[in-house]
């Protein structure tokens, strides 16, 4: 794959979501040493939707994210972004440039860079080597950084090293990095782990405000949090979809109860 190919998606600037859905996962299968992590998984995410995905440990949530972002290649199945982009043929950076952003379960920021530099690095733009050598922040980009720092409440920490932030602040910074990437689809893995209630509320607010402009997929364990943000919830179990619906619907689903409460 040449660099140009990876870069052309954002230049084109258009993602074909004419059939309403932005992400298509069909009949995906992945196994590790005989263990089926993903088992005939089929899932659709609509453009502008905020979807929560829950499920017990080992249900395949993280592996699913790995497939979408190109980290893991499935043994079989299809994964399309919009109508035209075959995710299985792209590498991680190509997928990122196509417009899928990801926040990891464990917050990973660039620890030896300042908060502002973290945003600069994540920002949407030409990400080729030669361009990077000469790149300077223009006024517009600078404004975007300031704005985003406002949104995530880290304006005060502009010059602070990201490694010196608290756990919650790192979570926020990572969300900020997602925002400046301007993705169509955000994959957010456990965004509120280790956050205080207050921080959680703010996160919920932020994620809700993102929906509409972006599609957001949130994987979360905290049921209260999920209830506070989700319209639609998907329950994963043993690598496939167990139930789908509103929070109330899935909570009354006997199979879900069985899985979560054990008999």
């Amino acid at each position, binding site marked *: 794959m040449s660099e140009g190919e990876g870069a052309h998606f954002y230049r084109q600037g258009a993602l074909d979501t004419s059939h309403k859905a932005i992400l298509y996962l069909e009949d995906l299968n992945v196994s*590790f*040493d005989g263990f089926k*992590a993903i088992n005939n998984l089929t899932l659709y995410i609509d453009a502008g939707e905020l979807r929560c995905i829950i499920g017990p440990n080992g249900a395949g949530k*993280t*592996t699913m994210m790995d497939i979408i972002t190109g*980290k*893991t290649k499935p043994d079989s199945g299809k994964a399309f972004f919009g109508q035209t982009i075959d995710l299985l043929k792209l590498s991680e950076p190509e997928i990122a440039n196509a417009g899928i952003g990801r926040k990891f379960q464990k917050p990973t920021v660039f620890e030896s860079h300042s908060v502002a530099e973290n945003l600069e690095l994540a920002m949407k733009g030409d990400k080729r080597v030669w361009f990077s050598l000469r790149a300077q922040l223009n006024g517009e980009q600078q404004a975007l950084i300031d704005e985003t720092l406002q949104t995530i409440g880290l304006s005060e920490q502009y010059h602070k090293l990201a490694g010196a932030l608290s756990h919650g602040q790192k979570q926020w910074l990572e969300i900020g990095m997602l925002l400046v990437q301007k993705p169509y689809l955000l994959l957010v893995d456990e965004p509120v782990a280790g956050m205080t209630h207050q921080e959680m509320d703010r996160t919920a607010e932020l994620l809700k405000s993102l929906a509409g402009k972006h599609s957001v997929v949130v994987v979360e364990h905290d049921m209260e949090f999920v209830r506070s943000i989700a319209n639609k919830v998907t329950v994963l179990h043993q690598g496939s979809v167990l139930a789908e619906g509103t929070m109330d619907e899935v909570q009354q689903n006997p199979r879900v109860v069985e899985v979560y409460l054990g008999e």
Partner: protein
Amino acid sequence: MLAKSRARIGVALILLFFSIAAVWAETDPTWNQASSLFKQASFDKTREAADLLAASSDPQAPLALKALLEGQLYQHKQNDSLAVLADGNSLDASTGQALSALNKDDYRKIPINNTLRKYLRSKLGGLSLSSSDPKVRLASTIGLLETVTPEQLPQLQDLLSKETDSQVKDALYLAIQLASLNSSDKASKLSALNALEGNLNPIVRNKLTILSSDADSEIAKAAQTTLRSIENKVALNGQLETLFFGLSLGSVLVLAAIGLAITFGVMGVINMAHGELIMLGAYTTYFIQKLMPNYLDYSLFLAIPAAFVVSGLMGILIERSVIRHLYGRPLETLLATFGISLILQQLVRTVVSPQNVPVSNPSWMSGSLEINSVLSLTYNRLYILAFSLLVFAILYFVLRNTNLGLQVRAVSQNRAMARAMGVRSARVDALTFGLGSGIAGVAGVALSQLTNVGPNLGQSYIIDSFMVVVFGGVGNLWGTLVAGLSLGVINKFLEPWAGAVLAKILVLVFIILFIQKRPRGLFPQKGRAAGD
């Protein structure tokens, strides 16, 4: 070589005959007749005398003929008595008794020529062919092969019909075929050519090469066919030999790498001093041999546990003093252990000697196992091959089936969890590292039997060992075994057409490229955990 070994057989025969012959020693008239014939100093008369002796039943007679053939039969200038004068021991030819205080100038050597030599050889062959000792029979049959003539055919057939020993039978059969090749009868020539198909004896090959340009085209063609079949078989044996050398090299690689497979593969520790732990094992062998110079044959049995302990303790010392502080920082571990390797090397140079030290092979390791006349496997390589498999099996068992093995695997998979389950991870780390290092020491014992033992011994194996572990797939003992053996075999098969150095380079390049294709080696550890 061949001549020398034949001479040795001759001497053996002489000694053997003497021991038997010394029992009944009385002069019989044959000897007097022979003496007078010899005295006339003509080749014809000598031949007559030889016939006389050959016909006699005197047990000393073959001996005298043998001596005559070897140019060791002398006649006293005055009293005509015959004597065998070899270096150091002189005997009376007729009685077999030792002669003391004799003056060589009193004797005259009985001259012979090539015709006579050939004649004598066939005579003698015939004589010892009927010896009661199968070893003697075998030796004399083999001695006969080169010169066998069609005239001997009836005698050989007769012997074959009486022979009971299978080895001698084979040799006689071969002699008969070779004799038929020399005959003038075309049919028997052709049938012999047929029968010799696939025979690996070099004499046969020489003969066939001559015959393949025979004037008779039919014979030449048959000889060529047979020769080709033989050459194919020789080539096959050559391949087998290369395979053996490859497996032998591979077993050395496995031995050198298997300790590393534990410290690197299981613990994730890059130990650049691994080669020096091997070296320590080799030096332990040297010191053990120095301590018990009279029991060299048993020295290795003591050296193996001793090397295990020496290198193992050194490993534990390294782990406790340095590596322990660097867990989770593999690159730093690499540098620190490299420093240790430099110190250990220099230590050996300063304390022992910068030169190589001599380590001897016990007698049971020398010699070789002869499969056929073109393929023989040396015992030291065979033993080391077996030894490396044994070490592998033991290690595999230890890791699979013992409590220590269980704890090692637990710590290597999830340190925090293992600790929470009550595994004393520090102790397990030290023991695991000691185990890996001890195995390196044992490898050193084996290596001391194959290569020079010097301060640089370890250095020359460290990169190869890492290659084996990485190629096989880190954390997989089977991978190390397969990788080591296959790299050894690949290397040896490349050598004939690429040369040793280029073969080594090619193997390195091959591994580098292979790792690009499959970064986790032949047998990768799969799973989500392996991804990070």
